[in-house]
């Protein structure tokens, strides 16, 4: 694979979307009548790209464009319908900072559970448990149940545990959302260290500043296809420009909501 950390060749991913709520009788009836039970949805089509070892790549695109599907394919969670994916080594992926915890367990227990779910064994985490919890800034909550933490605190814990990973290829999908400024500085230091370490990074975010701080290259995914692939600034410029053509939907809605001149205004209830 000529040294690439990951190479995708003509990759396509199709989801089969059911028409209705499926029950045994409906399935049997459809089989007898030879009716289709589902329709196709192509989330990705003909995607070819490669990422070199140590490269830091941002995936950008609108909601539903196929970014997460692409990351799930890279991580081996989903399988391509067509095409090939070749990896030098499987990546370690962080798709969500809330999934992988058990709300009824303590913070201390959740360090090991979340770690194990992300490939980090207890033997490695145990000596660093205190530091992991301290880095998340929740030492005073070590024995609290996870369900008693705020969303931001859970997110800090997740990132703090995941930071123990020393995998050569890391994947992040929209993982920074609820952290406060203090922890944002910690994560910034973490991502900058990653960027210097030579680890391969593929990440998505809707925050161009966040991506721009660590990524040198961007790939714009649009409607399941690679629209543009190149230097970060060039791709982001083109991507941002694409929003200029959007109809001002919210403005139109606001205008609709305003009282029309040809109709009397509705009486206010309050």
């Amino acid at each position, binding site marked *: 694979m000529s040294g690439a950390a990951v190479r995708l060749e003509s990759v396509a991913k199709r*989801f*089969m979307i*059911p028409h209705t*709520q*499926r*029950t*045994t009788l*409906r*399935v049997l009836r459809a089989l007898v009548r030879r009716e289709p039970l589902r329709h196709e949805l192509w989330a990705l089509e003909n995607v070819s790209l490669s990422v070199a070892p140590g490269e830091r790549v941002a995936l950008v695109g609108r909601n539903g464009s196929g970014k997460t599907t692409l990351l*799930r394919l890279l*991580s*081996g*969670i*989903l*399988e*391509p*319908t*067509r*095409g*090939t*994916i*070749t*990896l030098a*080594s*499987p990546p*370690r*992926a962080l*798709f*969500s900072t809330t*999934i*992988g915890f*058990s709300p*009824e*367990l303590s913070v201390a*227990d959740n360090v*090991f*559970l979340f770690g*194990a*779910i*992300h*490939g*980090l*064994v*207890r*033997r490695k985490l145990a000596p660093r448990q205190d530091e992991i919890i301290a880095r998340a800034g929740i030492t005073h909550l070590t024995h609290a149940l996870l369900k008693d933490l705020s969303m931001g605190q859970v997110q800090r814990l997740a990132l703090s545990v995941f930071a123990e990973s020393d995998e050569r290829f890391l994947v992040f999908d929209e993982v920074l959302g609820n952290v406060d400024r203090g922890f944002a500085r910690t994560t910034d230091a973490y991502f900058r260290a990653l960027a210097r370490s030579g680890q391969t990074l593929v990440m998505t975010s809707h925050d161009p500043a966040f991506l721009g701080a660590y990524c040198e290259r961007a790939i714009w995914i649009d409607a399941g296809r690679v629209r543009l692939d190149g230097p970060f600034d060039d791709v982001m410029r083109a991507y941002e420009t694409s929003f200029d053509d959007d109809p001002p939907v919210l403005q139109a809605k606001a205008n609709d909501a305003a009282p029309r001149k040809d109709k009397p205004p509705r009486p206010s209830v309050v």
Partner: protein
Amino acid sequence: MSTPPQPIAARRIDLTWLAGRAAARARTFLGEPNRALFAELVRAAFKNTDHNSIAGALWSLLAPFAMLSALYLVFRERFGEELHAYPLFLLLGIALVSYFATVTRLLIAILFANRALLLNTTVPRETVILSQVAFHGYKFLVEMVLCALLAVYYGTLTWHGVLAMVPLVLGFLALVTGVGMLGAVLFSFARDVEHIWTLVTHLLMFVTPVFYGLESLSAPARFIIYWLNPLTPFLVALRGALIGPPAGPGVYVHAMLIGAAVLLVGYAAFLTAESAAMERT
């Protein structure tokens, strides 16, 4: 690592592909990170369900003993007079049917219940399934130990019996896992499979010789209960091992073949359809 194109239609009959996939999964499953994950999932299930306490575990063992008491009081005169060590006879039946019903019902909806985890992490699906089999399995094993203690009380426990129990319990776990995997795949295609299975498992207490002996049935009923209910050979063999007289080798072979065959069919169906099942849940 390379993922070649995989047409779904070809997978159904490609035994080489299935064997390769199963071997790759086995390598992953036996790796250290996955063994550690398995242990953490079981530990988390134990702490969540039993509140991390001995009392919590005892509460979960109360249900089989409540059922044992009820069945013993109701059926002691009708069946208990003819059957030696009737409480042990009952407990074996209750433990087997309860474990089968509980775990298969849980496994049927496991892909759905763990959808977020399975679509957002690289956790192997088999690990989640087997962690549940193992977590509930420890209660089943505790019940088996209690059965062995009862056998000591009745003077029916032998070393041969204890040794015979080991492959039977493993075969039974294979049966439960296979049925659960098959159910998990079916559930993704039709949601009411869960309701249908709940109904079936409620009936199991009556169509399995839990509180009656096979000898008390008519010949046609005995034939149906023995040959069409996969639990019956296991129960007959386990009772033979702990209460005696030992069941014939045919019963053991029958039980082990059922366990192995159902696991193979269930896992093959799971490997073939798991991706489609995951995407549909």
